[in-house]
C-alpha cells in the first residue's frame, strides 16, 4: 500500500478513543510521517478505524461505510469498546462487538490506548520501523497499562473479580485448579483490582503496546491449586488463601492462638458440606472451647 487513508467511524463510546486517534495527527506523534492521512469520506479511504461499542442507531451507517472502503479494506478496532463493548456491554442499545457486524483485522486494546500505542500499532501493521527514542514513549511510574499477576503472591481469593468495574476478571474453578483470568480487552484500566488485591499480587504495569489479531491471547492468567477436603476428597477452596488467612490470624490478628495453628488448619481444610457432619461439628466445638480458654487465660495473666 503506498498511501494509507483512514476513515474513522465512531459509534457510542466515551469519545476518548476517537480523540486519541486524532491526537495521533499532532506533529509529535507524526501519523502523517508514516504516509497516513485521515479522510472524511469512506470512498476515499482504504483503512477503517472503529471506536465505540456500536449501537442500533449506528448499525446501518457502519455497514454502509464498510462497503465503501477501498481495498485492501483493513479494519482496525481501537479501544476496548470497539473490541468487546467493554463497560457498555449490557447497555440495551449496544449491538457490538463490532467484529460481529464486519470483519476486523486488528485490535488495539486500551481505554483509551495512548496515541503512542496507536502509532506503533499502525507502523507495525504497515511493516514500518519506528524508533522509540524520545522520552514520551516511556510510561510514567504509576501508569495503568496491562496487568501482571505475581504467581507467588496470588492466593486466588477473587477479590479483584468482585470489585472489577467492567466484568473483566473471571474466576473459573476446575476440578483441581482455580483460574483467575483478566480479560484486559474488556477492561477500563481503572486499577480498582490492584487497590483491592489483599496480597498486592495484581498490578497494572507500563506495558501498553497491546496490538493483536488474536483476542484469545489477550489475557493475563494465573492458576492456584484448590484444596482437597480432608474428609470427602472434593476440592473447594484455594489452598493458598487458607494459608494466607491462617497466617494472618495467628501472626497479626491473634498471635495467642499460634500453638493451635495446625488444629485450626485441620478444621478449615474440611469442605462446607462435610463441616455440617455431626463429627465435624463436635470437633469444631472442642477446638473453639480450647481457643476461648486460651483467650481467657491470656486476659487473666494480664
Amino acid at each position, binding site marked *: 500500500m503506498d498511501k494509507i487513508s483512514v476513515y474513522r467511524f465512531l459509534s457510542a463510546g*466515551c469519545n476518548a478513543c476517537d480523540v486519541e486517534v486524532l491526537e495521533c495527527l499532532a506533529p509529535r506523534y507524526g501519523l502523517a510521517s508514516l504516509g497516513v492521512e485521515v479522510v472524511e469520506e469512506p470512498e476515499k479511504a482504504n483503512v477503517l478505524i472503529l471506536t465505540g461499542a456500536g449501537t442500533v442507531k449506528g448499525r446501518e451507517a457502519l455497514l454502509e461505510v464498510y462497503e465503501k472502503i477501498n481495498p485492501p479494506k483493513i479494519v482496525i478496532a481501537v479501544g476496548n469498546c470497539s473490541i468487546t463493548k467493554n463497560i457498555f456491554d449490557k447497555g440495551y442499545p449496544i449491538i457490538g462487538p463490532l467484529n460481529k457486524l464486519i470483519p476486523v483485522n486488528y485490535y488495539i486494546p486500551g481505554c483509551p490506548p495512548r496515541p503512542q500505542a496507536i502509532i506503533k500499532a499502525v507502523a507495525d501493521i504497515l511493516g514500518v520501523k519506528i524508533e522509540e527514542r524520545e522520552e514520551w514513549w516511556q510510561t510514567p511510574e504509576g501508569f495503568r497499562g496491562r496487568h501482571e499477576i505475581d504467581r507467588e503472591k496470588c492466593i486466588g481469593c477473587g477479590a479483584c473479580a468482585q470489585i472489577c468495574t467492567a466484568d473483566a476478571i473471571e474466576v473459573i474453578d476446575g476440578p483441581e485448579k482455580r483460574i483467575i483470568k483478566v480479560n484486559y480487552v474488556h477492561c477500563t484500566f481503572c486499577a480498582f483490582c490492584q487497590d483491592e488485591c489483599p496480597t498486592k499480587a495484581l498490578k497494572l504495569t507500563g506495558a501498553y503496546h497491546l496490538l493483536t489479531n488474536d483476542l484469545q491471547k489477550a489475557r493475563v492468567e494465573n492458576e492456584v491449586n484448590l484444596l482437597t477436603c480432608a474428609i470427602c476428597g472434593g476440592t473447594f477452596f484455594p489452598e493458598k488463601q487458607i494459608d494466607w488467612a491462617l497466617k494472618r490470624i495467628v501472626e497479626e490478628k491473634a498471635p495467642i492462638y499460634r500453638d493451635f495453628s495446625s488444629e485450626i488448619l485441620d478444621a478449615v481444610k474440611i469442605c462446607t458440606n462435610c463441616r455440617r457432619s455431626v463429627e465435624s461439628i463436635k470437633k469444631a466445638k472442642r477446638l473453639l472451647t480450647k481457643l476461648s480458654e486460651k483467650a481467657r487465660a491470656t486476659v487473666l495473666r494480664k
Partner: protein
Amino acid sequence: MPEKVYIGPYRPQLVEPERFELLVEGDRIIDAKMELGYMHRGIEKLFTTRTYMQNLALAERICGICSGVHTLCYAQTVERLMGVDVPERARYLRCIYMELERLHSHYLWFGILAHSLHEHEIFAKIMGEREIIQDLFEYLTGNRINYAINTIGGVRRDITPEKAEKIRKVLKTLRSLSDYIMSLLDDNGVLTKKTKGVGVLPRDKAIEVGAVGPVLRASGVTSDVRKDDPYAAYDKLNFEVIVEKDGDLRAKSLVRARETYESMKIIEQALDNLPSGDIAAKPGEPKVGEEIGRTEAPRGELIYYIKSNGTNIPERVKVRTPSYANNFAILAMLRGEYLKNARAVIESIDPCFACTDRVVVVDARTGVRRIMNLK
C-alpha cells in the same frame, strides 16, 4: 424556495454523531432541527446494575473529555447519601485536578474552533501545546484521559511536592499559550474577525433556552456553580466568574480564554495552601433516600440525581449534562444565521472535532442530494 441541509451524523463527521437539519433560504438559515441519540448507550440503566464503587468508572465514560468532573459530581452525590466527610486535603486536590481538566477542555475547544474556521496553523499550535496537560495527567493519575482519580470519599492519588513542582512548570508554559489565544482575540485578532457578531445568543434568549456554562456567561449572565453552590474547596479559593456581554462567538471565546487564567490561579492557590492529612475517607452505607449534586463542568452545570434503596446498588441515577442543556441554545443561535457560520455555531458549544468542510444539501423540491462546500 427553501432548501434542506443536513449536518451529521456521520457525514460530515462531528465528534459526537448528531444530526442537524437546517432549512435554508438563500444563504440564511430559517429553521433548525436536531436529532440526537447516535451515542445513546443506556448508561442510566447500566448505573442500576452495579455497585456505587463500580459506577465511578461508568460515570467517567459518559464523556471522554470532561471525564473527571463526572466522577466528581457522582462521588459528591454518593458522599451525601453515605454521609461521608471528605478530608480537607482531598477537597483541595479535587480542585487542582478539575481545573487542570478545565484547561485541557478549553484549549481543545479553541483547537476545534480554529479548525472549523479553517485556521489550520492555529489549530496545530494549540493542539500540539495542549499535549503537555495530557502528559501531566498521565504522570499524575496513570492515564491521559480517563484519570480514575476520584473515589467515593476523596481522591486516589496524592500530589507530592515533586509533582506540585511539575504542575507549576506546566502552568508556566500554558500561560504563554493563553496569552497567544488572547492575542488572537484582541481588536484586530485573527479570530476576532471571524467570530464577532456570529451566532449571537442574547441574554434573555440564553436564559429562556436554559443555556449553561461559558455559553450562558458569554451572554452576560453571572452563573457558576463553583461560586453559587461551592463544592470541594472552591469556597476557600479566590477566583473570578468571567462574564462577557455580547453573546456572540467572540464573547464565548473570550469567556473561555479568560477562564484559563482563573483556572491557573485556582491551581496555584490550592498548591500553595494544600492542607496536610488523608486523601480519602472511608465510604459508608448509603441511606434510603435521594440526593442531588451539581458541579461546574468545563461546559457548564452538570447535575447528578441518585436514588438509593439502602443497598450497595443505586436504584436510579439521572444525569443532566451541560452539552444537553446547550443543545437548545444551538438551535436558537442557528435560526437566522448565515449557512456558512453553521458549523462554527454548532461547535461554539460542543466538541465537534473533525467536522469537514462540506454538508449535504437536499433540494426541498426535487429531493436531489448534492454536496456543497461550507466555507
